[in-house]
């Protein structure tokens, strides 16, 4: 309707643009999209170019499964870091996922509108608190607490999971909120009208309808947890051993990279990029799993 209102006053240029519009605009968009994507491709290529050669030289299997990380002696094995990253990420996902999703459900389903307009921005605000501040508070408050009450050095899988869980909370919450809000209101009204309670509606209708968005929220949150560096360095302890309990210190792939990158040269530096390659692959695997799970579920649902 509004489009037709503007018609009479168009200049020849505007009219010409109008005729060519779709082609013109879509080609501009294509150029921009390609530049963005090529940026991402270039950085991916950069990581692989720097990291792959040394990985092949050491042997992929040995690089991934050996526990000897003595760069000065030419021993590159990152098995403890892989286990460390997995442990910390799993812990963070449990804490941050539960908290984040809980917050999102409360915000969208069980919360008066005025409270939403305060809570949602304040949770998003927390995404802006620097990771170094989170890490710092972890070191100053959380680590001594764990050391005194639970034992161990305090710097541990537990401490890193908690810090990372809290850090990924804003990401998980705000994206989940958007996904939950995008569910058409009719679904909810329909379910309520059928006699479902509010919680039943949430669980069986809204959470299911917004699944792809929620999975995206979890993936992005998980990405933040796996990829987080500064906070983890501060609270993880960074030992070279595979952690044997949640109170044991741990070194993650990211902290391995960030700890040593500033000083590394030659093969050591390349091995750190190779650690980045492994990280990339791990995230790829996690994402693939998440995608397949969500796709299979939705297929089963549509089949039933």
């Amino acid at each position: 309707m509004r489009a037709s209102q503007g018609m009479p006053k168009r200049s020849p240029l505007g009219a010409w643009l109008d005729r060519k519009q779709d082609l013109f605009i879509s080609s501009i968009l294509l150029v921009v999209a390609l530049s963005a994507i090529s940026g991402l491709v270039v950085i991916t290529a950069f990581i692989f170019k720097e990291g792959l050669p040394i990985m092949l030289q050491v042997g992929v299997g040995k690089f991934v499964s050996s526990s000897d990380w003595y760069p000065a002696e030419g021993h590159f094995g990152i098995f403890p870091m892989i286990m460390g990253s997995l442990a910390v990420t799993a812990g963070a996902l449990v804490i941050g996922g539960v908290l984040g999703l809980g917050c999102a459900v409360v915000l969208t389903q069980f919360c008066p509108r005025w409270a939403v307009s305060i809570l949602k921005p304040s949770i998003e605000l927390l995404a802006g608190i620097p990771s170094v501040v989170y890490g710092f508070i972890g070191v100053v408050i959380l680590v001594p607490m764990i050391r005194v009450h639970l034992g161990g050095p305090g710097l541990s899988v537990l401490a890193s999971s908690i810090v990372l869980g809290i850090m990924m909370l804003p990401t998980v919450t705000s994206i989940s909120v958007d996904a939950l809000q995008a569910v058409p209101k009719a679904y909810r009204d329909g379910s309520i009208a059928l006699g479902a309670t509010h919680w039943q509606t949430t669980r069986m209708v809204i959470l299911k309808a917004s699944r792809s968005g929620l999975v995206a929220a979890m993936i992005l949150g998980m990405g933040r947890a796996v990829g987080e560096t500064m906070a983890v360095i501060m609270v993880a302890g960074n030992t070279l051993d595979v952690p044997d309990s949640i109170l044991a210190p741990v070194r993650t792939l990211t902290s391995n990279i960030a700890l040593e990158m500033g000083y590394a040269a030659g093969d050591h530096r390349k091995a750190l990029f190779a650690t980045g390659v492994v990280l990339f692959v791990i995230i790829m695997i996690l994402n693939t799993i998440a995608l397949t799970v969500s796709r299979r579920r939705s297929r089963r649902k549509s089949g039933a």
Partner: protein
Amino acid sequence: MTRQAISNPLHADEGADNGAPPPQINAPRHRRQLRIPPDVAQRIVVGGLWAIAMSAVAVLLFIIVFIMVKGLPHVTPEFLLQAPAKGGRLGGVSPMIFGTIAVAGLAVLIAGPIGVITAIYLTEYTRESKLTAFIRFGADCLAGIPSIIFGLFGFVFFADTLGLGISIISGALTLALMVLPTIIRTSEEAIRAVPAAFRDVSFGLGSTRWQMVTRVVLRSALPGIGTGIVLSIGRSISETAALMLTSGMVARHPSSVFDSARTLALHFFTLSREGISMPKAYATAAVLVLAILMINLLAYWFMRRFIARVR
């Protein structure tokens, strides 16, 4: 039927929200799955969820209060207006405030439009294909790459190869690359969530694709896109590892985008980790948190206004 009678008050509670009449129809499918009566389950779950939400909010509040209590007493007008001296032990943070705004602002100005346009292209101008799925997948993977690798890339590519030097522009471009996946993904999610019917109606009324995108789709997707952008502003402000090597550590007022500038987060990192000065570190953190608060409020204000205008 008695079960419904009990659950009625709860519905009446929420009724104001959605205007749905109290349910009168039994739902046998649910009874099979739930041993606990639904209304009791509702109360338990809602209580639990509120507890979760409140504990999250409490943790977050604690962090802010902790920083404020420790830092605000040291935040004086001089602290805000002076440059640091003696490696940060004396003086203030005024160059860092400026540097933070310059680097993060420029980064979002670059990444925002490009990211949103890419998302539009991926959702509205191409058909869902292997390629788009691959791009989305790649963006997800890049979101998990540690920022220090972006920093190294920025150092090698922007600062060295392109000859931009260690400068605000190098830092901003690096940050832009870093937040691009987040902006693309959140915008895509928001655009995809716009009901297909809107598009059909728009086409049905004879609009071109571009008119449909700008007047119908973007308008509905705006809050979601805004969320992505606000998140990226936050991420840009709080980044340290990627900026150490690209925008650098110089604690002086930059005179152009080709000057190096230290951000508040980096300043805090140096002060606290090298153990230079704890009071100054807390004060810097307090300023940082306040700055983020202000920027977010501004972003919300703009978005509100924008949404109000287009609607």
